[in-house]
């Protein structure tokens, strides 16, 4: 044997550090994607806009006071002067002008007389970096236009219903729809999910039935969400229409237009969708409870249910809660199954009951994103900001609740 070793150590080390850099880079890239995603959304949710007034608000200066500083009397005078008689009578009938407050009148003047339209929008980044260029462009191309910095997420946006006019459009209906849908989802998925987990972890003997149910749950967790939409469409919207439309409860007034495409159907569909996730998470939580706790309870003559109710559940509740919040977050963001079961594409009326037609935040985002105009893109971004904020606050609430419970657990 005359082999020699050619270790080539330095080459190997160089190669090693190059690849290490590559691995680190990949990780940085992954995080960068997240950052880009969030930044784009924020970028689109704020920025300069150029608004063109139908009636230039500078012309509405009265007694040397600009429009936004005018008092009730001045605003009333403006309305008298500019509003068409027919529109005036209609509004008067809604609520007499004499009874309206200053802010209401101001909003009226803006919407009815000034009636701004968006001519151009800019992203936050552009707005910050090239403010001068934007100002120059605005002055040149839209001498009549008004350049203002707009937060697309604002109080009006949160409180106004959907509208075809981008400046007036809001997400109140969608927020209400999301909240009501999620409550229904929670009301069904939480007890059933926890119940199933308890049965599987505490009661089930190892039999073919148990194994079948367990495997089945894992499989369900992997079924694409759109399939659940198809299931919801066939079962809740069509099959159970008398129930989900509220017809058998005499809710026909709300139900006559919604058919089965109601908040109830949406909530049930999402409940079925997140059930496997809740079950699997709750099972993990129950598995983490030490057997000695069960033994000590049974040894003092507690029944199985007493043991579960007073010892196992309290000991695992923090984890169950965390798992449930994760599942609910997922449900809040779901879009496809709700489109399939027939979310309303343009809904201006707030839901009044669980038998109302529905739209949700993700549906609204989907609608706005698929429009080509830039204004709608900003609206979509603003709605995403709200959706993410909702999910974030839900998660932080859960974390706080869990930590509190952890502290009490030691008691």
């Amino acid at each position, binding site marked *: 044997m005359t082999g020699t070793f050619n270790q080539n150590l330095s080459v190997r*080390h160089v190669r*090693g550090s190059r*690849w*290490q850099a*590559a*691995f*680190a*880079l*990949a*990780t940085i*890239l*992954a*995080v960068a*994607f*997240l950052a*880009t*995603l969030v930044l784009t959304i924020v970028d*689109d949710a704020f920025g300069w806009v150029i608004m063109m007034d139908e009636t230039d608000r500078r012309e509405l200066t009265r007694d040397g006071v600009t429009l936004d500083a005018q008092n009730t009397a001045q605003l009333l005078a403006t309305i008298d002067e500019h509003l068409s008689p027919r529109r005036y009578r209609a509004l008067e009938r809604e609520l007499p002008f004499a009874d309206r407050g200053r802010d209401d009148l101001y909003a009226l003047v803006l919407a009815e007389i000034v009636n701004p339209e968006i001519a151009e929008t800019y992203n936050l980044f552009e707005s910050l970096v090239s403010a001068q260029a934007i100002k120059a462009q605005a002055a040149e191309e839209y001498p009549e236009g008004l350049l203002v910095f707009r937060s697309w997420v604002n109080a009006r946006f949160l409180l106004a219903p959907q509208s075809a006019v981008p400046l007036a459009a809001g997400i109140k209906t969608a927020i209400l729809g999301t909240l009501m849908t999620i409550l229904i989802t929670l009301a069904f998925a939480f007890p*059933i*999910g926890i*119940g*199933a987990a308890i049965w599987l972890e505490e*009661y*089930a003997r190892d039999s073919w039935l148990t194994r079948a*149910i367990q495997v*089945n*749950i*894992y*499989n*369900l967790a*992997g*079924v*694409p969400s*759109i399939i659940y*939409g*198809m*299931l919801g469409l*066939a079962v809740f919207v069509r099959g159970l229409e008398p129930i989900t439309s509220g017809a058998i409860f005499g809710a026909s007034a709300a139900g006559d237009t919604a058919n089965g495409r109601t908040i109830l159907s949406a909530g049930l569909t999402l409940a079925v969708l997140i059930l496997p996730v809740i079950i699997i998470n709750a099972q993990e939580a129950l598995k983490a409870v030490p057997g000695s706790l069960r033994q000590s309870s049974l040894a003092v003559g507690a*029944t199985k249910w007493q043991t579960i109710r007073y010892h196992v559940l309290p000991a695992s509740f923090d984890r169950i809660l965390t798992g449930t919040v*994760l599942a609910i*977050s*997922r449900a*809040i*963001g779901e*879009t*496809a199954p709700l*489109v*399939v079961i*027939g979310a309303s*594409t343009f809904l201006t009326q707030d839901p009044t009951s669980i038998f109302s037609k529905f739209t949700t935040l*993700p549906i609204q*985002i*989907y609608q706005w*994103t*698929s429009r080509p105009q830039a204004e709608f893109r900003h609206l*979509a*971004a603003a709605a*995403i900001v709200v*959706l993410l904020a909702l*999910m974030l606050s839900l998660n932080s609430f859960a974390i706080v609740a869990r930590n509190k419970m952890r502290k009490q657990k030691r008691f």
Partner: protein
Amino acid sequence: MASFIVYCYARFCKKAGTMKHGTIGFYPEERLGRLSFRRAPRPTERLIQAFLFFCAAVSILTTAGIIVVLGTESAGFFKEVSILEFFTGKEWQPSIGKFGIAPLFVATLTTSLTAMAVALPLGLAVAIYLAEYARPRVRETLKPVLEVLAGVPTVAYGYFALTVVTPFLRGLLGQENVEVYNTLSAGLVMGVLILPLISSMCEDALSSVPGSLREAAYAMGATKLETSVKIIVPAAFSGIAAAFILGLSRAVGETMIVALAAGAGPRLTLNPLRSAETMTGHIVRISGGDLSYDSMDYRSLFAIALVLFVSTLFLNILSRNIVKKYREVYE
């Protein structure tokens, strides 16, 4: 009727209650009496157990529901369209009665494979970095960040694809080469969506390789890279394969990104720069419109959904079996 049941139940409970302790004293010295050890009926307890079993059975009902719904509606569909035509036809044009799934299926494959081409190498690299190189502090911070990435609603990813990635691609490759809707953009963004799944599954696989194997490699004078890439990764191969398969299943079923960014109209093309509609995208677009329940359009959606269901189910089961195997090998 209901009140009768409540009444009977109350009677039953009462009887059970009196049997619990008899009149036996609590202290040993007072305890001269007879007590039955006969199994108490505990109706509440049994009712609860029955309810819990019902909860578990709901999952079976769900599966049965999916199979029955997809099965019956598809059966109606296949009465009018032959299965052969469905799988071999090259055109999907419901308005003229052409139901060949190929365009939808190919689009699904294009987007999914694009996604995997992004997610697998990146996800594996992230996993190797996290499992083999990163300091614990870094790992503990990065993992939740990636989880957040996975928690962002897919409709936001769709928004991202349409408003950022597509314009970027069009700028890079030329407006005339890249259509406004294209499968490349959807696929790339979907890759980012799936990346956290892949990286966490791969990390599981890598860290379940026994430490002894690692030590053996180091002891032979292998460098860290050689150990990771030539010893650990191959040892974790089945886990990585499982991650790939599960990721693929996720990509095939993913809807909102393709619905927003890939295109709205079936087209048989392999060119990722052109628009095409995937199976999921088609279902969402058609069911989002006004759809009458007794039309072929309606039934055809269920036939597509059946294909989707069967293929994702197959991939999921495959992936889980692989994971189970490698767990058995190392435990």
